């Protein structure tokens, strides 16, 4: 392979990474069929690989790929004599349409709302969005949700079939329907962020492009619907994101909040996040995302772990727990309570929580249990909990961290 074609291949790989979801969103709108659009997308990239070496890279590669994908799909439909079906599709193809950036952004938002339609089961909304909007693999989604890849694949197929057969429209809902449709979208965006912020598996602790993607979606949503919870969610993501540089060591290991170099926290993101939290709380129409963002903001304004206002954080967790009871929030509250009232008080809550069984397979619950036992000098209990956390974690850097903590425990 000569250098030029090697370079072109790298360029195409980058294009695929950065643009394939935008192109796919537009192809779904034009073709009205997820599977057909997916196939067309791959055909378009194949055509680029064949044609660009002789014809050169087009001025607007994105538009070129959309056009190529659309023609490939039409060819295929003609072969299958299904062209009539395409012409009857709800949004007929517009000849000579220009695919500018703005238009493609609209298509992405349309795709998000289609994937998060309440006529689909919630699990299906999440799986479909992660697959189609964010390009996570079925395996990655399965790991993130503790399900098998075949379960996720089935969910996605059923959802696509319902979109096609019940004709779920490919559109951003009108103002009157928007608010009720938003809840699912927010939840999906946050799950995507989390997957990027704390990847469920793989060698890297973070997968920044997923978080960046979620923040971008959050900004788009806020522009569309300036509601308190949209502000809250974006604030929450920005405040978490502000700590990214401080969260991992040079070796890629996670650094706990208490050991993070707070001078590395991104002050621009913090300022933006804090302003959004404030606006959300002042609206008095805030919900769980705004409350979680408020907790993150309390951390962001503290100069150190000791200087953190733990009383306020535990108080915010109390409100949050009333708004949305969940074992994971209980776990986080217990960790904050350990900071306010000491490790023994926190440990008691976590042990009770683990005994209930809901978090038995959640590695962070065991890691928190291990950490509090370590602080109390309960070496045997700490060892057992670290080992359990290690069994459950599939995340490379996180495992290294747990192994190091385990090795540091004094032997008896």
């Amino acid at each position, binding site marked *: 392979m000569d250098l030029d074609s090697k370079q072109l291949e790298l360029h195409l790989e980058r294009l695929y990474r950065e643009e394939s979801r935008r192109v796919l969103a537009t192809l779904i709108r034009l073709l009205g069929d997820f599977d057909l659009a997916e196939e067309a997308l791959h055909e378009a990239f194949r055509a680029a690989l064949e044609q660009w070496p002789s014809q050169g890279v087009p001025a607007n590669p994105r538009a070129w790929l959309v056009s190529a994908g659309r023609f490939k799909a039409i060819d295929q439909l003609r072969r299958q004599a299904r062209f009539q079906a395409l012409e009857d599709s709800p949004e007929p193809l517009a000849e000579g349409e220009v695919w500018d950036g703005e238009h493609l952004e609209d298509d992405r938002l349309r795709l998000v709302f289609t994937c998060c339609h309440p006529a689909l089961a919630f699990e299906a909304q999440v799986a479909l969005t992660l697959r189609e909007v964010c390009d996570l693999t079925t395996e990655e989604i399965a790991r993130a949700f503790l399900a098998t890849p075949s379960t996720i694949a089935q969910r996605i197929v059923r959802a696509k079939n319902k979109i096609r057969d*019940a004709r779920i429209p490919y559109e951003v809902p009108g103002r009157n329907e928007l608010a009720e449709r938003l809840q699912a979208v927010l939840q999906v965006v946050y799950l995507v962020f989390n997957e990027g912020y704390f990847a469920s598996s793989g060698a890297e602790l973070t997968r920044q492009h997923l978080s960046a993607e979620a923040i971008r979606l959050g900004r788009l949503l806020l522009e569309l619907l300036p509601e308190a919870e949209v502000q809250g969610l974006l604030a929450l993501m920005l405040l978490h994101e502000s700590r990214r540089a401080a969260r991992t060591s040079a070796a890629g290991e996670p650094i706990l909040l208490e050991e993070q170099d707070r001078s590395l926290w991104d002050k621009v993101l913090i300022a933006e996040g804090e302003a959004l939290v404030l606006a959300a709380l002042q609206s008095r129409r805030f919900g769980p995302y705004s409350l979680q963002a408020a907790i993150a903001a309390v951390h962001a304004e503290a100069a150190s772990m000791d200087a953190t206002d733990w009383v306020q954080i535990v108080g915010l967790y109390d409100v949050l727990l009333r708004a949305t009871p969940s074992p994971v929030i209980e776990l986080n509250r217990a960790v904050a309570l350990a900071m306010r009232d000491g490790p023994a008080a926190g440990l008691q809550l976590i042990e009770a929580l683990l005994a209930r069984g809901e978090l038995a397979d959640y590695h962070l619950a065991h890691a928190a249990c291990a950490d509090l036992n370590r602080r109390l000098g309960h070496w045997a209990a700490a060892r057992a909990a670290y080992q359990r956390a290690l069994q459950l974690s599939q995340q490379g850097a996180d495992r290294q961290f747990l192994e190091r903590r385990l090795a540091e425990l004094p032997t008896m």
Partner: protein
Amino acid sequence: MKYLCLIYSDEKLLHSLPESPRDAECLDYAQTVQQSGRMLAAEPLEPVATATTVRMRGGKLSITDGPFAETKEQLAGFYLIEARDLNEALQIAGGIPAARVGSVEVRPVRQLQLEG
């Protein structure tokens, strides 16, 4: 695309709750949908006590008293509508006055390929 909106409700409550629709309101709404050009058919049904269920098993006709499923909410009527997509169908279904006291199931109608 055609959608069938099946209206289910508890017969005893359909007309007795404070938010229960009156006949005039139901007629008005049906008229609105009719005038929008989306109505293909709509009929209220006689109470479940009048239902009879028929099954053909091994060439033998069996007839039983009552509806297909004995549940708390029963089929009380239907709208057959023409809608652009599911969102439009859901919007029309949401406006059916009986949706306030019962449930409306929205099902896309499959097109039978009948020869002229």
